[in-house]
């Protein structure tokens, strides 16, 4: 997708996913999409984006940081008028949810 198309287009889940790759877990240095923390994305015709995500553990002190970072990267995105971020714990996150790229960056795969 070109920049012009992106700016004038409607919001879609792929665009949201691309933007969410900009949210890096600073402790790990890997983004939340590749860490497998995003469970679901949807966007309604009126531009309401719903994001279902988890954290590596409940009670994680980074939850507020992640929450703000997700809202920050989606602010001003074309076609998105509001964001509903839902943090869920079912299913529990485990390392099998990480992408191959994340595993490579974290030394699982050489």
């Amino acid at each position, binding site marked *: 997708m070109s920049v012009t198309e992106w700016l004038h287009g409607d919001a879609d889940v792929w665009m949201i996913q691309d933007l969410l790759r900009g949210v890096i877990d*600073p*402790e*790990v*240095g890997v983004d939340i999409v590749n*860490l497998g923390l995003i469970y679901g994305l949807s966007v309604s015709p009126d531009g309401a984006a719903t994001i279902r995500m988890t954290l590596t553990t409940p009670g994680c002190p*980074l939850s507020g940081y992640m*929450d703000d970072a997700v809202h920050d990267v989606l602010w*001003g995105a074309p076609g998105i008028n509001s964001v*509903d971020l839902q943090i869920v714990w079912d299913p529990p996150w*485990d390392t099998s949810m990480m992408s191959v790229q994340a595993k490579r960056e974290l030394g699982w795969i050489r």
Partner: protein
Amino acid sequence: MTGQSIGLTTARRRRGGWVAPLMIGAVVILLAALWSGLVHLGLPLPSGGVSLHKGHGPMMILGFLGTVIALERAVALGARWAYIGPAAAALGGLGVLFAVPDGVPQMLVTVGGLALVGVFVAVDRIQRSLHNFVLASGAVCWVVAGCLWLSGWEVYEFLPWMAGFLVLTITGERLELSRLTGTSTTGRRLFMVAAAVFAAGLVVSTVTEDAGVRLAGIGLLCLALWLGRYDIARRTVRTKGLTRYMAAALLTGYAWMAVAGILWIVFGRLTAAVSHQASYDAMLHALFLGFVISMIFAHAPIIIPSVLGRPLPYHPVLYVPLALLHLSLLLRLILGDAVDNTVAWQWGGILNEVALLLFMVIVVYRLFLHKPTRRRTRSAAA
């Protein structure tokens, strides 16, 4: 674009209006404890009274760090009752500062510890995990320390339990993150053995100080070696920016934890009525300054925004207080404690505090005075 609005729903729900006052309370307690630290170093300053002078350790550990740790957990859980923890810890710390009747600060910090145990019980009901059990064990150590303080024990007698609170809290977090690097079952078992040895040392120290502290020292050394082998910081130190800074602070902290473990094994006794006794000073500050404050320096750039909801943009200048902390601690422990040079010991202690204050100044500047470009654009658009 002007008409768009993004609702910061979940974060705003989690952060109550009392977060900022609690943080201010924690900072006041820290400043008072730092003042008391200068008096302990023998500087000619007003002592501020017996309560403040004797309460230096509990104020730093249960007052300041207790408030901050319980607050980050309360914000993460998002339940109103969870704020009892940081509120009670802050009031307890302030109680020491203002010399309220004996027993009240002790009672308050113990309540704070109990509330933190409650937070981990709540987390356990959401999702059971080994690391949460370790974190809960750290909070139990806080409660034990508070109870011993309440029952009239001297500070140096329950210091191992205060160490237990911080060590198990921090290492429990690191155990959780170690999953991301694929730590094996054997690796996790090794962690549990090291943590169990450390915890056993705490229990034994209440009966037989010498043996207990040495056993806890073995546990500390094993935990430090485990962190050096399995922690994600070994990998992330090769990245850049904030992630690299955090890893550098973590790894240097682990080195101090190993030093503390060795000192605890060698000396085996914390009992010392005179706070500047060399071995006592080294055993405490290798752990509480070298390890714990390094962890605070590592995590503050992400925990403070998480708690306050304000961005704290990373800047490499954060390496300056970090380096000063470690270099001044080397001065304090080697030329001060080991060589027994009082002037070097005092300068080391003063520079330790300068490092902490410098870190705070940088954080406050970047939180409240520095204007990131992106936020400015955002305000202009709104």
